[in-house]
């Protein structure tokens, strides 16, 4: 009967609960609860530290997603010392969360198999998990890297400044000729300190932090932020606002998926699709600009709803553009599947087996391409997705082709969803006032961004301000998936593998 007290508090996406209702478990029970949940098919959506409310000790929180039951679980434990036994050897999907806890709070997860910094910054406390002196400079990327030794082994180092117009990161390949034995990815170059800047908010900047966590995921991150604020403030947004958020979210998915298919074509030297999709991506961005003036959806989603309404003329214009862009997309994308030289570079390249994807906690199209039917829109629905379901597309092979083809399937469904929403858009206001946030509450807001699960966790302090704000971009889960699929691939297939994930550096680095 002790088990009853060991259960995480159950709640759902976008519903706040009093922090007091989250059980404080002993470390052993806390870790067992995570292992049990993962063994039953649940996922670790977030695991993070927070300054304890009543003492110097750090509290660890875990947010578990039970996709089958459409519910979430939250539990916490208190770490009184400077260390705790690492869970990673028994639960690989927490490996980066534990490294993050070590870096942010100076707590050492003892027995962690690869305890390195995540973002190369000083801890928020006076402790340091690596016992570095306060005056010792922390240089990004300067650390041990996994090495393969042997006379014919060579190492290839790339970055942080890359050849293209892309974000900075450092990649270390252990190679035998063309063959990659191991890839290690060191990030942190885009770290700008957003999580600590959120503490004490909301301020006039908070929504802008959300919109720029990952610029190509502005709508999904802004929506998650607003859902968190609205839940804590018990604010009921209108059905019209929710529909417009859904339309903006799917436009964001369309633009990025189309752009990715074009970039994948470019990486295998198939210029027709690369050229067309590069342009068509802009057509979708311009549809978002038609809604709110910004191609990236800046200013669209605001606490209490959305900042821009649509009238019949704007809806008609949007639908007309959607029809034209979808037609262009279908012609451009279907060239890929009919071209043997493209398929030869997509099929069987960079496979991510289903079980590995599950073990690593992969989310989004990358998970679905490996046969995991994971989609927040269906599994943890919020907003418009509680009323309008989008079928979850999956594929079995987990290779570059599957990750490309999943995007094509999702493009078609997003277009249908937008049409459905605009055809029957509910009447009403688009924005309502947001009251003050409740003190001492926790909320988890999940959204299915185009890369996968966007997770925001907000905990309010005694004054109803943010005491802790945790962001988990889908890239945080998925970078390890990219590193994994490079094993035993040719190094020349790195670009196409990389693009098939197309992960965010800034979303990871925060």
């Amino acid at each position: 009967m002790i088990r009853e007290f060991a259960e995480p508090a159950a709640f759902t996406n976008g519903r706040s609960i009093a922090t007091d209702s989250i059980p404080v478990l002993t470390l052993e029970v806390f870790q067992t609860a995570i292992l049990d949940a993962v063994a039953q098919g649940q996922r670790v959506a977030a695991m993070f530290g927070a300054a304890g409310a009543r003492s110097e000790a750090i509290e660890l929180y875990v947010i578990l997603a039970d996709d089958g039951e459409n519910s979430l679980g939250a539990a916490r434990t208190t770490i009184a010392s400077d260390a705790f036994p690492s869970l990673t050897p028994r639960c690989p999907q927490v490996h980066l969360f534990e490294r993050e806890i070590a870096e942010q709070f100076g707590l050492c997860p003892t027995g962690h198999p690869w305890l390195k910094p995540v973002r190369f910054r000083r801890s928020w406390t006076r402790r340091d998990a690596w016992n570095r002196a306060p005056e010792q400079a922390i240089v990004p990327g300067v650390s041990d890297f996994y090495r393969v030794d042997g006379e014919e082994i060579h190492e290839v180092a790339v970055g942080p400044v890359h050849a293209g117009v892309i974000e900075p990161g450092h990649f270390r390949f252990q190679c035998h000729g063309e063959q990659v034995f191991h890839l290690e990815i060191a990030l942190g170059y885009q770290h700008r300190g957003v999580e600590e800047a959120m503490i004490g908010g909301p301020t006039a900047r908070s929504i802008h932090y959300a919109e720029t966590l990952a610029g190509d995921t502005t709508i999904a991150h802004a929506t998650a932020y607003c859902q968190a604020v609205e839940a804590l403030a018990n604010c009921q947004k209108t059905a019209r606002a929710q529909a417009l958020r859904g339309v903006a979210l799917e436009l964001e998915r369309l633009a990025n998926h189309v752009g990715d298919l074009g970039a994948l074509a470019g990486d295998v030297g198939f210029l027709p699709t690369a050229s067309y999709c590069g342009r068509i991506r802009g057509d979708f961005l311009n549809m978002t600009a038609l809604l709110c003036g910004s191609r990236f959806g800046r200013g669209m989603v605001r606490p209490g709803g959305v900042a821009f309404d649509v009238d019949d003329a704007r809806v008609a214009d949007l639908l007309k553009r959607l029809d034209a862009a979808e037609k262009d997309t279908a012609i451009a994308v279907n060239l890929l599947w009919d071209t043997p030289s493209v398929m030869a570079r997509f099929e069987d390249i960079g496979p991510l087996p289903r079980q590995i994807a599950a073990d690593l906690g992969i989310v989004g199209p990358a998970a679905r391409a490996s046969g995991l039917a994971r989609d927040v829109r269906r599994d943890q629905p919020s907003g418009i997705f509680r009323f309008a379901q989008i079928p979850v597309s999956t594929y079995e092979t987990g290779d570059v082709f599957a990750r490309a083809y999943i995007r094509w399937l999702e493009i078609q469904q997003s277009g249908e969803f937008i049409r459905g929403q605009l055809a029957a858009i509910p009447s009403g206001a688009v924005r309502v006032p947001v009251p003050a946030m409740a003190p001492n509450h926790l909320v988890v807001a999940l959204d299915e961004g185009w890369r996968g699960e966007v997770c925001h966790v907000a905990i309010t302090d005694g004054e109803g301000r943010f005491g802790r704000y945790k962001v988990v971009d889908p890239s945080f889960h998925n970078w390890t998936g990219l590193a994994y699929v490079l094993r035993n691939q040719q190094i020349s297939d790195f670009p196409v593998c990389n693009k098939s994930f197309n992960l965010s550096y800034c979303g990871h680095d925060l």
Partner: protein
Amino acid sequence: MFEVIAARWQQGHRTTKYPDGPAPPMPDRFRGRLVIDVAKCTDGCRTCLQACPTAAVSLTDKLRIDLGRCLFCAECVAACPQQAITHTNEYRLAAGRRADLVVGHDDRDLHLAAAMDAKLMKLFGRSLKLRQVSAGGCNACEADVNVLGTVGWDLGRFGIQMVASPRHADGLLITGAVSRNMELALRKTYDAVAGPKIVIAVGACAISGGPYIGHDQVLGGGDAVVPVDLYIPGCPPHPLTILDGLLRLLGRIESGERLLR
């Protein structure tokens, strides 16, 4: 093969005629250059200052807006009880001097960027190769710089190209607030470019730090590390704003042209 030809026929020629033809129309809700109407700002209520997330609006002797800090969020426009601040559809924003981005209430002109001097023009006027350095932003500026390379804009027709190595480049195009973790890489990349060289800062982050102004983890823009020759405001700037800035620098658009309301 026939499908490829048919697709080529169907997709047609889509490169913008700009600058020889008209610029593509801006969306009606586009938030471009801000304008202050002096007659309406009478009591100095400072509501707009409180609304601005990045302290882009300032009021000392007179009301000013620093377009280099501005996120173009229009919170100041919404906040002003007198409707003294308005957004225009004006996309032309690039300036050659940081101070030129600060626009005042009785000085309605924004001094747009002038062309490079004769020596640089001789070197770069018909072939400008840039190395892009992404340094602590959100990747939206990078995305809309990349857009200029698509068939819709075809940056190559102006002789401008993004190159893979600083050794091949005539200058840098910086995005992001310059995180501490990118300072060394930015400095090394700049040093690797052979002189004479130019630096272009794209977006609020690269000009001032943008949303991250004042954070310990960022240095507050490109000119904290390297000298900047062209500032292109926006969060992110529209591709047309970026192209306009580049073409002004190359003297392809009338230099000294001024914005009038």
